[in-house]
């Protein structure tokens, strides 16, 4: 019994999903709602359970515990071909014995759609490859195969389109181009896209909402800006961009702000941005939020004194400084090169300042290395 695609159009809801392989939990008690029409990204390092989650939604794996709903329909145990869901596979999985036309027509023919030719031509025009209809997949470049795989899925107008590391096999330049193209196509066809990736930049470029996954659980979910500006865990702070995490203690209140003691220097930050559970906390500041000034100059906001420039790397749009602090920690600072030549040299004594509102607070018992060991360029299985 196939699911009525109209009735099943709605939000995707995963409720308390666990997938175990023996003692190993690939996905651990995951609850998630993906709103209809959104471009949603599951982001995490390889082995975090994101691909397993996707395969359970596609019907290629069955959850050990929990349920999956599409709209009001329970699809937890239905077969993949009964779900109004299509997948763009990693490495595309185009049928090598069929022409491009027949590859795209495959789903339409199985569903007994009447105007196959018309629909295939339409989607081939959408991806701007109508001249390749009679070719075989092996005769196409990686970028072309990627687009055919996408066309083969969206031609069925599924309630949900799943993309499993769809750009992983492309080179950097093509990947950037396809990111923009995918986002455009998603808006054009108005389908719900669920995108699995280990590439934080890819997720941030395309998705409206990102769920960061780690060890089978969701660490944090939100818009790219929310996740970047106010990460709740060290893993998110490190996996999305870079962070400076400084050990501190909550020293008191000042209206809506907390006063934090960082190795004897007092700073303040908004209460709402602290995720600490007791008085110990890590103060987090993104490297580009810091400003460097010469010792003795007048600066506003939070100030840390006693820094010494340890290293200067000029990389065109910005200069990256490593600043050694009196308590032994090295902080990363990115400065825009809007004044031309980088003004600071190695060995100079400096003070670091930043806007208090840019500070985020993490629990004091966090592992501040979490998420840093991951190489974002590695291809997950």
């Amino acid at each position, binding site marked *: 019994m196939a699911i009525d695609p109209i009735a099943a159009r709605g939000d995707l809801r995963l409720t308390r999903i666990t997938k175990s392989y023996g003692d190993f939990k690939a996905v651990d008690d995951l609850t998630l709602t993906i709103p209809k029409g959104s471009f949603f990204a599951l982001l995490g390092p390889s082995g975090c359970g994101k691909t397993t989650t996707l395969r359970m939604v596609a*019907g290629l794996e069955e959850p050990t515990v929990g349920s999956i709903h599409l709209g009001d329909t329970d699809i937890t145990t239905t077969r993949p*071909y009964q779900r109004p869901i299509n997948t763009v596979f990693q490495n595309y*999985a185009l049928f090598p014995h069929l022409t491009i036309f027949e590859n795209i027509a495959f789903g339409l023919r199985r*569903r007994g759609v009447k105007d196959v030719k018309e629909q295939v031509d339409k989607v081939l025009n959408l991806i701007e490859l109508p001249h390749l209809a009679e070719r075989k997949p092996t005769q196409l470049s990686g970028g072309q195969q990627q687009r055919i795989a996408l066309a*083969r899925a969206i031609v069925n107008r599924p309630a949900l389109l799943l993309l499993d590391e769809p750009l992983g096999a492309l080179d950097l330049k093509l990947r950037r181009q396809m990111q923009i193209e995918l986002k455009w196509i998603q808006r054009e066809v108005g389908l719900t896209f669920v995108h699995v990736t280990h590439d934080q930049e890819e997720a941030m470029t395309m998705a409206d909402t990102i769920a960061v996954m780690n060890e089978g659980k969701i660490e944090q979910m939100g818009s790219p800006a929310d996740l970047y500006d106010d990460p709740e865990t060290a893993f998110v702070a490190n996996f999305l961009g870079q962070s400076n995490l400084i050990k501190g203690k909550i020293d008191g209140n000042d209206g809506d702000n907390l006063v934090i003691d960082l190795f004897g220097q007092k700073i303040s930050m908004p209460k709402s941005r602290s995720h600490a559970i007791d008085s110990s906390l890590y103060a987090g500041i993104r490297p580009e939020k810091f400003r460097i000034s010469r010792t003795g100059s007048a600066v506003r906001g939070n100030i840390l004194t006693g820094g010494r420039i340890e290293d200067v790397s000029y990389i065109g749009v910005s200069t990256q400084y490593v600043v050694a602090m009196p308590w032994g920690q090295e902080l990363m600072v990115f400065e825009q090169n809007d004044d031309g030549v980088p003004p600071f040299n190695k060995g100079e004594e400096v003070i670091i300042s930043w806007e208090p509102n840019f500070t985020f607070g993490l629990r004091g018992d966090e592992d501040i290395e979490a998420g840093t060991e991951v190489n974002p360029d590695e291809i997950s299985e």
Partner: protein
Amino acid sequence: MSTKTVAATIPTIPLNARLSRWFGRNLLRIYMFFGFSYLFIPVAYTFAFSFNDSGKSNLIWKGFTFDNWQNPCGAPQICEALGNSIKIGFLATVFSTILGTMIAFAIARYKFAGRSSSNLLIFLPMATPEIVLGASLLSLFLVFKVNPGFWPTVIAHVVFCISFVVVTVKARIASLDPRLEQAAMDLYANEVETFRRVTLPLVAPGIAAAALLAFSLSFDDFIITNFNSGTMTTFPKFVYVSAARGIPAQANVIGSAMFFLALAIVIAGQLVSRKKAR
């Protein structure tokens, strides 16, 4: 004097160098020439002697004739033997290909108790000496009071062909990306449709290769056939028996024809795959 020495020495050193360079460059070609000669001289001999105006014995060249090719059934019983071989080969191929393909899928795709031991046991008929296999099959047939003849021969051929089919088809299945089948299921094809439209077409070249292999193994089997065929004659048996009194030139005709047929199939296969790749 000195100019003479120079004139004599200069050409000799480069000659050595040139010779060794020539060998270095052409060694592979020389090796290839001898290799192919070794393989094809017997075939060429067989082909040449199919035109021999031989009379009774086809050992000495007596003159050129087309008679043997115009009348390949000229030798007594030869075409009956050939017909039996083709019938047995066809039946053994059909049964062993169907059964072997099913076994290959089971072993390659499913996890079941005894999977690894069946994987091992399937090699056994390949490893067993044919003389042993043939003799055991005969005694088995006799125990069950089945007389040697056409059908026992077919059954015996299926036994040893299955192993080769399983090995060939299994290799093809192993090279099949499981994501293709998942993609088919994802695109609304149920299990049966997925098998028919994706799995089977992709495994088909392996099955075809297995079938050809099975046919050629069955067609030229002598030892096992000799035990289990009773009074029925097959083409290899005919050649063996007539070897005692001189093989008729018609045997060379049929042998050569089989060779060219096989060659044509191989070339056609190459052309088709080259056309597909383009």
